[in-house]
């Protein structure tokens, strides 16, 4: 393979100097007469952030950060020509992602079963049906320590064992693909990119618990996921991987798809079962748990998409292998959907026990615009925020809970200094109020009242008493709500109150929003001494609240201004004040 050199300026702020550096580097290559043998490439992302000019020499993959112009000759001579790392300068890139669930995502054609089989697909199933008793499968799952990836973290092996032991002439296996947390989409991605791995996980699960019928419950908002699962099920039926005598064994299973109509509460297992039965998606009190009395009163095992995608690998490589990854209490990896104000949003799969800072800064490159990251929000509307000061926290079920948040399904929303915590709490609570089914009073009334108080606070009309009342209602909702939605809905409020009390106090006492987000508490003014009369703000204003011209300057009409901040963003000389 020919020599290739990648370069990229990884400094977060300031001008991108990659082009200038490219010229210098190319000049040195020409001097040495190497310009035809070595390919010098400017790349858009080199996997390193905030470390100055970065150079990667291929095929050996030597990596240099904070490279200065006078380092280039040594790199060219020793690495490019010599094929050796420059002593004391070369670093190894910490490869922090470990892909188990996403092993085939983006690698195979999701609509081709042959592609999946070529990557060891259905080998685990053949191994299980060829010689494992259901008890042995369950034992292997218990050894692996895999816990439910839907959010609650219940050990999968134990769930299977309870369902196996439950009395019933018919049992059911259900795949929960009703992913509803704002900003979380890893289940969609797995269903779309690797449908067969989820199907294989379901067949193994059904074999372990003794089910002959299974359902995919997927929300109707995921048309592509549904289409691909449908196609995959058909391919399996044609090839005898579903139906009767699977892979020539005596095991039978058929799978069907049920569509969710997009109600958030239907991700809760009892509501999900009601929905499949054709009833209204209301949750019901547990116990009895679905493992004992579930779909149509029969023992039912419900597993999340990500949980199921783990299963084929665990049975291929063994439970002990899986248990070797992760922390004491949480094994394996977790997929996070990192979104919000982060440079590289996307899916990230890391071993349990990876520090939050490694995910946010190391893999995703930190904040998008060079502003400071303020906090992350995990677990969707049931979770909480974790401030930047605690980013050394290692992600697993327990440590996140200790921080007042939860693992949840794996949404991770990054917030920067422009985000107001009271406003964030209001957003998530508003989501839960919209999605509350209204069956129980604590959730229905408590949520609405809390939202009313939060609106008051962000409008600058709150009092200290309101903050106390927020806490009081939160505790009542946690204790008295019927299902997980109501019990966890106050979490974003409680965790923002816990970490950002000062911000709430500023809203209540000084009637100020420290992040300058709450529209009723801020105003924009043009500082005439700094204004260069360029007219950018005039063009940017969506409601024509800015008047004037390039000779006389501009003014903001406060009665028309909707405080959207567009003028503030576009003003180059920073002549617009926000307070």
């Amino acid at each position, binding site marked *: *393979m020919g020599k*290739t050199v990648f370069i990229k300026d990884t400094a977060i702020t300031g001008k991108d100097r990659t082009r200038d550096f490219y010229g210098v580097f190319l000049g040195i290559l020409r001097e040495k007469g190497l310009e035809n043998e070595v390919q010098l490439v*400017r790349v*858009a992302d080199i996997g390193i952030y905030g470390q100055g000019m970065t150079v990667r020499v291929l095929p050996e993959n030597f990596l240099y950060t904070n490279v200065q112009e006078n380092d280039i000759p040594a790199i060219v001579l020793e690495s490019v020509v010599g094929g050796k790392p420059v002593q004391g300068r070369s670093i190894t890139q910490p490869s922090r992602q470990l892909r188990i669930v996403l092993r085939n995502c983006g690698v195979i054609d999701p609509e081709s079963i042959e592609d999946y089989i070529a990557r060891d697909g259905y080998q685990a199933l053949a191994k299980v049906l060829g010689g494992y008793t259901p008890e042995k499968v369950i034992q292997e799952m218990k050894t692996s320590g895999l816990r439910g990836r839907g959010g609650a973290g219940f050990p999968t092996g134990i769930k299977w064992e309870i369902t196996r032991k439950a009395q019933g002439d018919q049992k059911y296996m259900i795949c929960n693909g009703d992913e509803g947390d704002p900003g979380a989409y890893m289940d969609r991605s797995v269903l779309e990119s690797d449908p067969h791995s989820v199907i294989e996980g379901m067949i193994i699960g059904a074999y372990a618990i003794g089910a002959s019928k299974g359902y995919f419950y997927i929300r109707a908002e995921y048309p592509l996921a549904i289409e691909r699962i449908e196609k995959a099920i058909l391919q399996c039926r044609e090839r005898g991987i579903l139906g009767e005598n699977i892979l020539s064994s005596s095991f039978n299973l058929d799978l069907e798809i049920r569509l969710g109509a997009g109600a958030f509460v239907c991700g809760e297992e009892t509501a999900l079962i009601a929905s499949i039965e054709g009833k209204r998606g209301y949750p019901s009190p547990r116990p009895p748990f679905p493992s004992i009395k579930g779909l149509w009163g029969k023992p039912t095992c419900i597993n999340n998409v990500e949980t199921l995608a783990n299963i084929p690998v665990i049975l291929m490589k063994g439970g002990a292998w899986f248990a070797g990854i992760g922390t004491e209490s949480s094994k394996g990896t977790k997929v996070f959907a990192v979104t919000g104000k982060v440079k590289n949003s996307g*899916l990230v799969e890391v071993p349990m026990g990876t520090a939050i800072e490694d995910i946010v800064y190391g893999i995703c490159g930190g904040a998008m615009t060079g502003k400071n990251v303020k906090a992350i929000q995990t677990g969707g509307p049931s979770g909480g925020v974790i401030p930047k000061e605690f980013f050394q926290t290692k992600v697993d079920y327990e440590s996140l809970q200790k921080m007042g948040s939860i693992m949840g399904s794996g949404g991770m929303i990054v917030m920067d200094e422009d985000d107001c915590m009271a406003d964030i709490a209001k957003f998530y609570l508003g989501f839960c109020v919209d999605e509350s089914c209204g069956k129980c009073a604590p959730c229905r009334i408590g949520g609405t009242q809390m939202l009313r108080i939060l609106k008051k606070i962000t409008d600058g009309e709150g009092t200290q008493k309101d903050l106390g009342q927020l806490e009081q209602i939160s505790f009542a909702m946690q204790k008295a709500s019927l299902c997980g939605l109501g019990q966890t809905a106050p979490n974003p409020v409680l965790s923002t109150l816990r970490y950002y009390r000062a911000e709430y106090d500023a809203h209540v006492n000084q009637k100020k929003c420290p992040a300058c987000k709450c529209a009723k508490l801020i105003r924009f003014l043009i500082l005439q001494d700094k204004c260069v009369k360029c007219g950018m703000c005039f063009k940017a204003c969506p409601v024509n609240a800015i008047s004037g011209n390039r000779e006389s300057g501009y003014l903001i009409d406060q009665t028309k201004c909707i405080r959207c901040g567009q003028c503030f963003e576009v003003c180059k000389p920073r002549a617009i004040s926000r307070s």
Partner: protein
Amino acid sequence: MIKITKKDLESIKEKHNGADHNWIKVGFSTCGVAAGAKEVYDTLIEEKRKHSADVEIKKCGCVGMCSAEPLVEVHIKNMPTVFYGKVDKEVATKIMEKHVCGKMLVNDRIYDLKLN
């Protein structure tokens, strides 16, 4: 179709993992399609025909770099396997002309590479 057995799994695997050849994969998940993967795919097919290039063009799922969609992964023998991000019609044309036919990587568009 004939029902497959454990043995068939092995033979399908062997047949499928054949000799090393040139390929291009275009991410076709919701994120990719929304960002314009279809146009990129069509452009690549069209350019391949124009240049009679020796390369297989495939569809695949989502690799997870959603902010850089549409993503195109290019594997050409004796060259690093790389991911091009934010690919549009113009870049897709360049990929076929420069990378596949000219064996030169395209500047400013590589978002990741596959090491092994």
